[in-house]
């Protein structure tokens, strides 16, 4: 526990420290920075609120309705979160852009067009990315309510409102603040999405200011200050969320899927409305990414693309392993708090700091893939813990005393109780980590290796060389691989969970 926390702290604060030392102290903020800070917090708050608010009816609908393809839909809906930013933006524009599907339909109906660019576009894009995550976090918790409780509620003749107050509200109170915090913190470091869909410099975020300071002005002091501001924001958000979310359990359940008694009639119609809406919103851009990518992929992705795919897979698997090992000892309240700061750390500051720290000892170029794997594991850790911690605590509450009287060794506890009981959330968390690691550009700006490109880097290179079609093909490959990994882990966690 202490070791894992220490490594985490060193990796989060070390790089900022290194940048600060190199800069010789804190720099001054530029006049636009305060405005960027305001915009960043504002858009992240809105994005978090909308993502979680929309996730509530969707997760509830998915929790109580069964239908053919439900499992696949739940898996598929996770895909936006794992898309590389550039690919996702293209998919979103193909639907909501000026010449996208929505405006095409509006034109056909003779209605005025909608303009996606602006604050609402930023929020829309962030909801697109993060709604799946929020839905899954809520759904996970929803499924953790023992079905007996719902049976009890219906035998008591509770109205839907009554069920909400007695069962679902306590659940939301426990999970929603954490989900909000995670989305908020992710959106804090948004840069390319915010800029592109924000429609211009109005949508300047702190991360963009860091980029400018670091890459254009070479003002490390200012970059470090901004990085610290961002980290503090994320940390405070995490702190508030954890304060708001009381860690209370729902007692031991049978762990079995029992059909819900509620959710019939009008509720059923409403549920399917929400499911349909979310599916259309999330899947339409994905479908267009696929459609655009097919020609490029059929033409042959090229040897470099396949090699890059191989590297990405390696990085993803290494990151996942690392993140699991890291998450095991940190699945506590304090561990989660510590980790939430990790998403708020600017990837640019992190990359530069690691470069400064590692350079005296190793050649940064040869470290490209390992560093990418470590950074991706670090970035995925907060998600892992958010997903695992409530369930891990539940397992400890339900079986901790039994394990103790049986004098189970820590290893036996881990192997026989912890891992099997946490299969579902662990599979989900691992799938997420793997997919995130597949899609992340990581710290390539300073740790690039000409022969070991990852797939996202390959996509950028293809686009940079005008090969938009090949890039779309590579993006489709990336989507398939990310999703494949996600699906494998997620499914793996869900087989045989009936007993």
């Amino acid at each position, binding site marked *: 526990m202490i070791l894992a926390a220490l490594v985490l702290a060193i990796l989060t604060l070390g790089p900022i420290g290194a940048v600060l030392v190199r800069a010789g102290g804190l720099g001054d903020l530029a006049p636009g920075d305060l405005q960027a800070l305001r915009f960043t917090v504002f858009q992240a708050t809105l994005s978090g609120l909308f993502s979680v608010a929309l996730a509530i009816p969707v997760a509830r609908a998915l929790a109580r309705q069964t239908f053919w393809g439900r499992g696949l839909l739940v898996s598929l809906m996770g895909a936006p979160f794992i898309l590389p930013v550039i690919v996702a933006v293209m998919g979103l524009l193909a639907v909501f852009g000026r010449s996208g599907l929505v405006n095409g339909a509006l034109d056909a109906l003779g209605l005025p067009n909608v303009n996606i660019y602006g604050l609402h576009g930023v929020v829309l894009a962030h909801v697109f990315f993060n709604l799946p995550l929020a839905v899954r976090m809520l759904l996970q918790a929803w499924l953790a309510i023992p079905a007996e409780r719902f049976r009890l509620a219906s035998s008591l003749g509770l109205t839907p409102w009554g069920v909400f107050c007695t069962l679902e509200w306590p659940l939301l109170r426990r999970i929603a603040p954490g989900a909000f915090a995670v989305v908020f913190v992710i959106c804090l470091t948004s840069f390319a999405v915010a800029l592109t869909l924000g429609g211009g410099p109005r949508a300047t975020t702190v991360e963009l200011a860091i980029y400018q300071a670091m890459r254009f002005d070479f003002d490390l002091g200012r970059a470090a200050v901004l990085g610290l501001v961002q980290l503090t924001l994320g940390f405070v958000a995490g702190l508030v969320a954890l304060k708001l979310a009381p860690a209370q359990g729902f007692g031991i359940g049978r762990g079995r899927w029992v059909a819900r008694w509620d959710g019939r009639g009008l509720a059923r119609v409403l549920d399917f409305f929400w499911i349909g809406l979310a599916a259309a919103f999330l899947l339409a851009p994905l479908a267009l990414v696929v459609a655009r990518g097919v020609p490029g992929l059929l033409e042959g992705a090229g040897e470099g693309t396949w090699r890059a795919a191989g590297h990405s897979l390696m990085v993803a698997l290494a990151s996942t392993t690392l993140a699991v090992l890291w998450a095991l000892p940190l699945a506590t309240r304090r561990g989660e708090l510590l980790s939430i700061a990790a998403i708020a750390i600017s990837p640019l500051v992190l990359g530069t700091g690691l470069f400064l720290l590692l350079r005296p000892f190793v050649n940064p170029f040869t470290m490209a893939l390992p560093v990418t794997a470590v950074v991706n594991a670090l970035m995925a850790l907060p998600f892992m813990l958010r997903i695992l911690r409530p369930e891990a605590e539940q397992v400890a509450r339900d079986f901790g005393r039994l394990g103790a*009287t*049986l004098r189970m060794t820590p*290893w036996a506890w881990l192997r026989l109780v912890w891992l099997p009981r946490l299969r579902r959330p662990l599979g989900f968390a691992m799938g997420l980590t793997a997919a995130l690691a597949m899609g992340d550009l990581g710290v390539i700006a300073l740790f690039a290796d000409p022969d070991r490109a990852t797939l996202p880097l390959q996509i950028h290179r293809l686009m940079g060389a005008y090969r938009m079609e090949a890039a779309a093909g590579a993006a489709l490959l990336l989507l398939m691989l990310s999703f494949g990994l996600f699906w494998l882990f997620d499914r793996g966690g869900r087989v045989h969970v009936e007993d």
Partner: protein
Amino acid sequence: MLRIEDLVVTMDGQDLTGDLVMQEGARVAVLGPSGAGKSTLLDVIAGFRQADGVLRWKCDVLADRPEDRPISILFQDGNLFPHMTIARNLALALRPDGCRLSPVQNEQVEQALARVGLAGMGPRKPGTLSGGQQSRAALARVLLQARPIILLDEPFSALGPALKQEMLALVQEVADELGALVMMVTHAPDDARRFAQSVVLVANGQVHEPVETEAFFKTPPAAFRGYIGQTTD
């Protein structure tokens, strides 16, 4: 003997205090009103709850950590891991490191299951067993653990009267076999009468010294009379 000296447990509302001595091999019922602290007392003995005072087994002070105490405990529920087979659940009593059992140990598990009337049920999962069968499986594990103190926190309260009686008889056999001290929290005076040699009353923040069962029920203490519905005279 199990000796509890100068016990003070901080609880919501009222603290629980008392001194207690119980002999090896004794069967003791813990009676008292709801919320008086019966389960809390067991938790303290098992080590799940911090309290002031000294707990001694024979002459030694009991270790701090529950896993280091010579105690088996059966909770109200959740006594078996639902995702493991019965055999696997029982195996943990012999190999707390979760490793595979030796053939001899496997034989022990089979015998323990047979002993509680569950021969051949090893490969099944707890969810496929009836409540009574689950209780038996848990008891079979207590048998395998072979520890000198057994704590029962109303583990049979959900069973029907006939089944409960059967289980109590089984516990008695197991305890005799192991020569173990058994402390059983219960709500039912009948169970106590049938099973226990002595009764510990927990009431009004006080853990009373054990009283021989017959004597206890002959002249119940005032605190207990109120609980079972007898008017005070």
